[in-house]
C-alpha cells in the first residue's frame, strides 16, 4: 500500500542518477498490501510493518526472493530485507515489473558503487567528498528501537486495550461535565442579539383560525385544502397547492397507512423590497394522528401579522403539509426538483428562492407550559448550532420555559447534579441521533442543507402557562432575526452534542471518545498482525505450484482465497437481509398467516438469525489448512473492516458510531475460537446490532422515565424494525442499509472467527 509509505513514487527513482536521493526516497520495499485507509489501523500497521525488516533480513537470500514473488499472492507478506537480498534471483527479477527493477538498480549503487551508470551526473554535482556509509535500506528510524516499541505494544496489548476502552467510555461520560461542555454563544454577526421588537398580538385571531381549521377538518375528514387556500389568500399570501401520492413498500402499522395521498398547501409572503432569491419557511405538519390545529391557527395569524410588515428581505413560505413527514418530503423534493424516494407529486407552481432556514411548529393546545425543541434530523444530521442559539435567546427573552429532549436544563453546573442531569439529556440526544430518524418535520430539510428546527408546544400540569401570543412572539422574533441573515448559517458548529439547551460539546471534544474505542480495534489488529508474522516466520507460498523454485514445505499461510469465502458469504447474508424482507413479503403472506408488515419484520429476524448458522456452511467451502492462521487472518480483516466502518459512521453521525463502537468493540476484540466459547458467543449475540437496538429502546424509555416491560419492549422493538425499513424507503434513512450491508456482515465475520474449526 504505497500511500502508507509517504512519497514513494517509482518514477522518482527512474530519471535521477543521484544515488542518495533515490535511496532515501525508498523505504524498505515491504509491500504492505492492506485494504484500509483508516488512519488508526494504518498507523498501527505501519509500526508493525516497519518492525519487520530486521527479522526478515536474517533470512536466507533465497527465501527472500520468494517473498518478492509471493507478495502479489498473499496480502500481508512483507517484502523486506536489504536490497542485495531482494530481487536476487533471476526468476524474481523476471517476475517483478519494470518499476521495481528500476528501483533496484538505482538502489544497488550504494552497495556496488563501481557500477554507477551515469558518472557524469554525480561528478556534475561536485561531490568529491566520499559519501558516508549509508544505513542499511535507508531507514529513517532505528530498527532496533522500532522493534522494541513493537514488542512493547505486543506485550502490553491487553492492558492497553482495556485502558483504551475504559478511556473511551469515561471520556463520553465526561462530556456532560463543564471542562468539556461549553456555553453556547451566537457566532453569527447578523443575529447578534435579540434586539427586535415583537409586535405580534394575534392570539385571539390564532385561536379563531385554529377552531375553524379543526371544524373544517372534522367536516372533510382530511386537510381542508379549500378553506386553507381561501384563508391564506385572505391574509394576503400567494397560495399554491401540491398534491402527492406514494405507495409505501409495505403497510405502516403504527400510522395505519399504505397507499398515501395528500395535498400540501403553501402560501408565499413576498418580501416587498427584495428580489425573491431567498426564503424562510414556517411549516406545520398535519397528519392523521397529529391534529396540530393550534399550530395551523398560529401560522395563519403570524402570516397575517407578517404581511403587514415591510422589513422582510426574504420571502416567507407558510407551509401546511398533509400526511406529516411524507407531505414535507414531497414538497421538499418538488421544491428542489429532485426525486430521491419515488414520490409522485405535482410540480410546484410557485417558488421563492433558496431556503435559508425553516421552523416546524407542533402545537395542539391553546396554552402551553413549555416549548420543546428538536434538532436531530434525518441520518443524525443537525442544524447549525446558531439556529438553536437563536431559539434559546428568544426563550430567555420571552421568559418561556424551554426544554431539550423534554428535559429542563440544569441551573447549577458547578455541583455534580447539574452535569448528571446533563448526562441524561446527552444520552437521550445520542439515542435520538443514532436512530437516524427525523425527529420532526425539520429533519427532512436538513438533507437539503436548510437549517431547521422543530418547536413543540408541551402542555403539562405545570401551573404557569403561556398563550399563543407568547409563542407567536418568540417565532416572530426568530423570523425577524433570520430575516437579518446575509449568508447561510455557517458560522457556528454543525457537529455537536447537547447536554443542555445552553451547553454544547463540539466535535473536537467528543471525537476522542470514539477514537479511544477504535484504538482498541487498532491495537488488536496490530497484535494479530505481529502474531501472524511470527507464525509465518518461514514464509511460504500459499499455492506452492508456481515458479521453478525448490520444493517448499507445506504452506502455513492462508491465501486470499480462504478469506474470500467467509467474506463473500457474510456479505451475501447482509444483502439478503437488506433485500429479501421487502421483496419477499408477498411470498411470506401467502405461506404464513401474517400481515405484510409482520412478514417483513419476521423475515428480517429470520434472516438475521440464520446468519448465526453461517460458520457451518462457510467451513465447507474453506480449505482445512492452517487453522490457526486462518482465524487470525479472518479476525484481522474483520477488525479492520469494523474499525473502518465505525470510524466513517462516527465522523458523520457520532452518536451512532459511538453506540455501535461501545457495544461491538469489546466483543470483537475478545472473540477467539479457543477459550470459553459459549461465553464469547453470548457476548457476541448481546452486542450484535439488533441486540444493541433492543437495548437502546429500553435505555431510551428508562431515561424518559417511562420504563418498558419486556413484552412492551419486544413490541416496540418489532415496531422499530418495521419503522427502520420504512424510513429507509420513504425518506432515505441510511441506518437500515448501514446495519444490513455493513455492520451485520462484519459482525458475522466475528461469529465465524468464534466458531472456527
Amino acid at each position, binding site marked *: 500500500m504505497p500511500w502508507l509509505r509517504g512519497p514513494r513514487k517509482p518514477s522518482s527513482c527512474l530519471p535521477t542518477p543521484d544515488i542518495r536521493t533515490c535511496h532515501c526516497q525508498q523505504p524498505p520495499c515491504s509491500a504492505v498490501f492492506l485494504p484500509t485507509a483508516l488512519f488508526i489501523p494504518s498507523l498501527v500497521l505501519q509500526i508493525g510493518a516497519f518492525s519487520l525488516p530486521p527479522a526478515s533480513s536474517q533470512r536466507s537470500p533465497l527465501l527472500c526472493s520468494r517473498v518478492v514473488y509471493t507478495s502479489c499472492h498473499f496480502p500481508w507478506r512483507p517484502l523486506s530485507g536489504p536490497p542485495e537480498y531482494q530481487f536476487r534471483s533471476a526468476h524474481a527479477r523476471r517476475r517483478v515489473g519494470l518499476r521495481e527493477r528500476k528501483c533496484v538498480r538505482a538502489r544497488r549503487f550504494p552497495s556496488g558503487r563501481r557500477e554507477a551508470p551515469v558518472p557524469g551526473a554525480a561528478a556534475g554535482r561536485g561531490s568529491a567528498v566520499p559519501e558516508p556509509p549509508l544505513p542499511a535500506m535507508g531507514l529513517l528510524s532505528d530498527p532496533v528501537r522500532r522493534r522494541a516499541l513493537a514488542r512493547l505494544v505486543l506485550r502490553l496489548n491487553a492492558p492497553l486495550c482495556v485502558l483504551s476502552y475504559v478511556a473511551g467510555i469515561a471520556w463520553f461520560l465526561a462530556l456532560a461535565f463543564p471542562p468539556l461542555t461549553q456555553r453556547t454563544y451566537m457566532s453569527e454577526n*447578523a443575529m447578534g442579539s435579540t*434586539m427586535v*421588537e415583537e409586535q405580534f398580538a394575534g392570539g385571539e385571531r390564532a385561536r379563531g383560525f385554529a377552531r375553524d381549521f379543526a371544524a373544517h377538518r372534522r367536516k372533510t375528514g382530511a386537510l381542508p385544502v379549500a378553506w386553507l387556500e381561501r384563508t391564506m389568500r385572505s391574509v394576503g399570501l400567494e397560495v399554491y397547492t401540491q398534491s402527492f401520492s406514494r405507495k409505501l413498500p409495505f403497510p405502516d402499522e403504527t400510522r395505519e397507512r399504505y397507499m398515501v395521498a395528500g395535498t400540501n398547501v403553501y402560501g408565499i409572503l413576498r418580501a416587498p423590497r*427584495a428580489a425573491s432569491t431567498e426564503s424562510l419557511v414556517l411549516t406545520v405538519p398535519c397528519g392523521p394522528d397529529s391534529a396540530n390545529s393550534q399550530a395551523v391557527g398560529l401560522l395563519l395569524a403570524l402570516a397575517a401579522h407578517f404581511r403587514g410588515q415591510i*422589513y422582510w*428581505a426574504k420571502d416567507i413560505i407558510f407551509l401546511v403539509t398533509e400526511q406529516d413527514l411524507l407531505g414535507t418530503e414531497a414538497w421538499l423534493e418538488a421544491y428542489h426538483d429532485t426525486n430521491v424516494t419515488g414520490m409522485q407529486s405535482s410540480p410546484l407552481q410557485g417558488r421563492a428562492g433558496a431556503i435559508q432556514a425553516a421552523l416546524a411548529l407542533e402545537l395542539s393546545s391553546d396554552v402551553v407550559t413549555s416549548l420543546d425543541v428538536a434538532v436531530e434530523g434525518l441520518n443524525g444530521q443537525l442544524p447549525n448550532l446558531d439556529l438553536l442559539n437563536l431559539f434559546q435567546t428568544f426563550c430567555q427573552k420571552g421568559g418561556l420555559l424551554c426544554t431539550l429532549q423534554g428535559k429542563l436544563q440544569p441551573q447549577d453546573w458547578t455541583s455534580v447534579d447539574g452535569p448528571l442531569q446533563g448526562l441524561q439529556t446527552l444520552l437521550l440526544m445520542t439515542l435520538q441521533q443514532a436512530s437516524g430518524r427525523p425527529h420532526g418535520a425539520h429533519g427532512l430539510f436538513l438533507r437539503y442543507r436548510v437549517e431547521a428546527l422543530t418547536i413543540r408546544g408541551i402542555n403539562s400540569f405545570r401551573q404557569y402557562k403561556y398563550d399563543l401570543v407568547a409563542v407567536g412572539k418568540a417565532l416572530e422574533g426568530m423570523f425577524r432575526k433570520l430575516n*437579518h441573515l446575509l449568508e447561510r448559517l455557517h458560522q457556528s458548529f454543525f457537529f455537536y452534542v447537547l447536554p443542555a439547551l445552553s451547553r454544547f460539546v463540539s466535535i473536537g471534544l467528543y471525537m476522542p471518545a470514539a477514537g479511544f474505542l477504535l484504538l482498541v480495534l487498532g491495537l488488536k489488529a496490530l497484535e494479530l498482525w505481529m502474531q501472524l508474522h511470527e507464525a509465518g516466520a518461514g514464509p511460504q507460498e500459499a499455492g506452492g505450484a508456481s515458479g521453478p523454485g525448490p520444493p517448499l514445505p507445506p504452506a502455513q499461510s492462508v491465501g486470499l482465497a480462504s478469506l474470500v469465502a467467509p467474506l463473500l458469504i457474510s456479505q451475501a447474508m447482509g444483502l439478503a437481509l437488506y433485500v429479501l424482507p421487502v421483496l419477499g413479503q408477498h411470498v411470506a403472506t401467502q405461506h404464513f398467516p401474517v400481515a405484510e408488515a409482520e412478514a417483513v419484520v419476521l423475515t428480517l429476524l429470520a434472516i438475521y438469525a440464520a446468519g448465526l448458522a453461517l460458520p457451518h456452511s462457510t467451513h465447507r467451502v474453506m480449505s482445512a489448512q492452517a487453522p490457526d492462521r486462518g482465524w487470525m487472518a479472518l479476525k484481522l480483516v474483520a477488525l479492520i473492516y469494523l474499525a473502518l466502518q465505525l470510524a466513517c459512521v462516527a465522523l458523520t453521525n457520532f452518536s451512532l458510531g459511538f453506540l455501535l463502537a461501545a457495544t461491538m468493540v469489546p466483543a470483537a476484540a475478545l472473540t477467539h475460537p479457543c477459550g470459553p466459547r459459549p461465553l464469547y458467543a453470548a457476548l457476541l449475540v448481546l452486542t450484535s446490532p439488533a441486540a444493541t437496538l433492543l437495548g437502546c429502546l429500553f435505555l431510551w424509555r428508562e431515561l424518559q422515565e417511562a420504563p418498558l416491560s419486556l413484552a412492551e419492549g419486544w413490541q416496540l422493538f418489532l415496531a422499530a424494525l418495521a419503522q427502520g425499513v420504512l424510513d429507509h424507503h420513504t425518506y432515505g434513512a441510511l441506518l437500515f442499509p448501514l446495519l444490513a450491508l455493513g455492520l451485520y456482515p462484519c459482525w458475522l465475520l466475528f461469529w465465524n472467527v468464534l466458531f472456527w474449526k
Partner: protein
Amino acid sequence: MVASCFLRKCLTALAGLLLLSFGSLAASQIEDQTEQFFRSGHTNNWAVLVCTSRFWFNYRHVANTLSVYRSVKRLGIPDSHIVLMLADDMACNPRNPKPATVFSHKNMELNVYGDDVEVDYRSYEVTVENFLRVLTGRIPPSTPRSKRLLSDDRSNILIYMTGHGGNGFLKFQDSEEITNIELADAFEQMWQKRRYNELLFIIDTCQGASMYERFYSPNIMALASSQVGEDSLSHQPDPAIGVHLMDRYTFYVLEFLEEINPASQTNMNDLFQVCPKSLCVSTPGHRTDLFQRDPKNVLITDFFGSVRKVEITTETIRLQPDLGNMESRYKKEWMDEELMEPLKYAEQLPVAQIIHQKLAFTILFRISFSTPVVLGSSMRA
C-alpha cells in the same frame, strides 16, 4: 461769542484727543483681530467621510458617517467638497422598517440621511485602492470631479473613517484592509503633493489609536475613539429598527457638533473632551504633536465647516510692512537660488529632511499674504 467759539474749539480739541487715544487703542485691537483673521491659513475646506462596513448589522457605521456628513454640510461644506464613501446602502435596505431613513437617535429622533445625500463612492466602490487614490489624487483622467479630492495647499481636510478595525488596520468591506502604515504614507504623499494645509483625522473603530500612531507628516491632528487594545462600543439600540444605530464615540461627537454654528468659537480642546470614558466606555485618544498650532487656537469650524471669514471694520488697517518686504526678499532669494541650481527631483528619502525644508517654507508662506503660484510650483526643487 468768542467765548463760545473758544469753548467749541476746546471741545473739538478734546474730542480729537479722545478720538486719538481711542483710535490708538482700537488700532491695537484691530491688529489683534487681523492676526486672528489670518490665523488658520486655509482658504477652502474638504471632507472625506468613509464608512468601510457593509451589511445590515453594520447600520451604525453608515449612521456614523452620515452624521458627520450632516454636520459638515450644515456648517457649510458643499457636496462638491465632500467625498462621501458608504460601503452599503442602509436607507434602501429591504430590512429597514423605515425606508429612506438612517437614524442616529432612538425613537426616530434624528434622521441623518436627510433630504439630499450625495454619495460619491458607494457599496463595492469603497475599496482601499479607491480611497488611497482619492487621497493622493492619482485618479484616472475620466473620473468625474465629484469623485475627486481637488484640494490644494490651502485646504483644510477632514478625514473621518469608521468600520471594523484592529491593531494597526481598518477593514474595508469584508475582503481587504488598510494598514496604519499605508495610511501614514498616503498622508505623506498628500503632503508632498501639496494637497493639504492642515488635516484633521478622526477614526471610530476598535483600537482606533493604532491607526494614527504611524503618521509622520506635518500638520495632522488625529482623533480616535479608542486606545490600542480597546474596543469601540455601539450605542442606541433600537428594537424597532432591530440594530444599534450609532457608535458611542461618534454619537457624542454628533451631539457636540449639533451645538456648533458657523460663528462658534469652540476649539479643538473641546472636541477632545467630547466623550469621556464614562460615556464612551473606551478611551478616546488624540494626537497633536504633528500639528503646528495649539489646539486651543484651532476652531472646530476650521475643519468642520467652510466658514468664509467676514469681519466688518470701519478702520483702515495697515498691514505690517515688513511682511510684504519679507515676501519680496524671500522671492528674490528664491529666484536667485533657482537660477543658480539646476532643477531636479526631490529626494524621496530621507523624508524627515524634506519635511523640515517644507516646514520652513510653509511658515514663510503663512506670514506672506499672497499665494505665489509660481513659487508654489517651483517649491519642489
